[in-house]
């Protein structure tokens, strides 16, 4: 097959008028996020939403409801059930995501490491910071995460979610009892904070706000980049393909 020639018409004349043609550019697109990554992203997002809402209510329960006798009423029980169910989905999903980091494409690995000793990478982190401080006129193109995004993902999601899973399973294991397998696996969490499980509740609660702060930044930045950068962002997590708005090299 011959390479496409650049002077071939990009759009059908019946669909696009002269003004459209003037702004038309050739697009490159790369398949970045494979199905498991996208599936995980949205399941994870849903689980985090449920966990934040129910988690907040577990700390500050809704007003007392007297629907019927306590025997037949299970309101707070369902709130906790939803929290635990979503927590398990988050935890198992994260394990699956780790599996895919090993067996998926190389973009799937970005979440799990920081190229600490790569000076060029750090230079690009600095470039991205300047872009967000309005000191750069034009952003660079990235197929995967930009370096600043990778850094944020690592601290907020990889470390943040791991922290929530570990503390969460430790708290859950208390309900199962000291003789449970889960307590044998996660009981060390209580020892690590000095023994009082109330401390684990408190730091788990703070962790929720850590994740919420991530959500605010993440959603804002994704939409902003989708509008202002030279590549697709939001649709990439739906279709898996990254499309670039221009053909220029950085």
């Amino acid at each position, binding site marked *: 097959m011959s390479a496409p020639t650049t002077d071939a018409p990009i759009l059908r004349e019946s669909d696009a008028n002269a003004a459209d043609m003037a702004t038309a550019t050739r697009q490159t697109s790369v398949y970045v996020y494979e199905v498991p990554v996208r599936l995980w992203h949205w399941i994870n997002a849903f689980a985090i939403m449920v966990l934040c809402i129910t988690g907040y209510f577990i700390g500050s329960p809704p007003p007392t409801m007297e629907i019927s006798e306590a025997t037949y009423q299970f309101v707070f029980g369902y709130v906790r059930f939803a929290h635990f169910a979503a927590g398990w989905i988050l935890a198992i999903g994260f394990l699956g995501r780790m599996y895919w980091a090993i067996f998926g494409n190389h973009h799937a690995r970005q979440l799990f490491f920081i190229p600490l000793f790569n000076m060029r990478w750090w230079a690009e982190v600095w470039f991205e910071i300047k872009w967000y401080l309005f000191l750069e006129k034009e952003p660079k193109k990235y197929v995967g995460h930009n370096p600043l995004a990778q850094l944020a993902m690592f601290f907020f999601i990889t470390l943040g979610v791991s922290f929530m899973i570990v503390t969460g399973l430790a708290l859950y294991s208390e309900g199962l009892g000291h003789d449970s397998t889960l307590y044998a696996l996660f009981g060390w969490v209580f020892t690590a904070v000095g023994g009082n499980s109330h401390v684990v*509740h408190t730091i788990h609660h703070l962790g929720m706000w850590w994740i919420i702060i991530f959500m605010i930044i993440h959603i804002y930045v994704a939409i902003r980049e989708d509008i202002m950068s030279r590549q697709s962002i939001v649709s990439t997590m739906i279709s898996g393909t990254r499309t670039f708005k221009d053909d220029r090299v950085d």
Partner: protein
Amino acid sequence: MSQIETFYDVMRKQGITRRSFMKYCSLTASALGLGPAFVPKIAHAMETKQRTPVIWVNGLECTCCSESFIRGAHPLAKDVVLSMISLDYSHVLMAAAGHAAEAAFEEAIAEHKGNYILAVEGNPPLNEDGMFCINAGKPFVEQLRHAAEGAKAVIAWGACASYGCVQAAKPNPTQATPIHKVITDKPIIRIPGCPPIAEVMTGVITYMLTFDRLPELDRQGRPAMFYGQRIHDKCYRRPHFDAGQFVEQWDDEYARKGYCLYKVGCKGPTTYNACSTVRWNEGTSFPIQSGHGCIGCSEDGFWDQGSFYNRVTDITQFGVEANADQVGMAAAGVVGGGVAIHAAVSALKSAQKKTQTQVSENEEA
């Protein structure tokens, strides 16, 4: 060496019939969570074993442990255990005073060297060379080390000896220190609580004397049979928790109806103790039953966990007193505000760029 009596001898001397003795053995077995097969084993041990002496020392404390102990629900258990203890030296119960008391202490240590159980109520303050707690003219920490040398095992009574309790609460000016940081070469069993439940105290001592070993301990060195579950796990108000029926205020209708005290700060869900099963004062009641939330007195550092009356308690690590929600909301607010400003500036910048491009295009044209 003088002949030491068996437990059974001691009991009979106190006028206890064999029938009552057997009752005690079965009660103890069930209190310890052992099957009926253990009743004759306990009886046999009590009949044949020489009683093991217990030396009880008091450091920085309030004596609530002793007060709880002598109010054991089963009088027989209390009498037996009390008679096991070397009453020659116990600040609360001894008849002697001054030099005579100290001489009795030394005598008990020398006589039972390597055999006795050291029961420690309170803890040693280490600041200023331990001068904040003086026993017989010497810092308590010295007496504690001395008594621990010849001990077979050590019992840490109450929150003081186990974790430090109120005298170790921040900023802990006397540097009150839980005993496991001072005694590092002996097995220590922790019986936390402020105070611990009397039946738990007598039960643990009986177990140790009968079976000649420590009961099964959990991760924190507490006997699993009494500290294996949270107050919350066996709370009789638990159905109201699951239903979502809470006391909102102390004097409201829900408080009168006996709803769950979670929202008014009950620490039952984070406290390991036997209050909701064994209860207090001959099984009469326990804090939650009398309408007050658990304050978590058997947990490490319970004085430093913020208010007893809030569920989400204050944390002071951020320089101000605020709870996790206030800290989180403030941080999220700052980030949210930053995002809004950033979005506005981004929009302005885009508009500016567009105008400039149009201007330059017009100039080119």
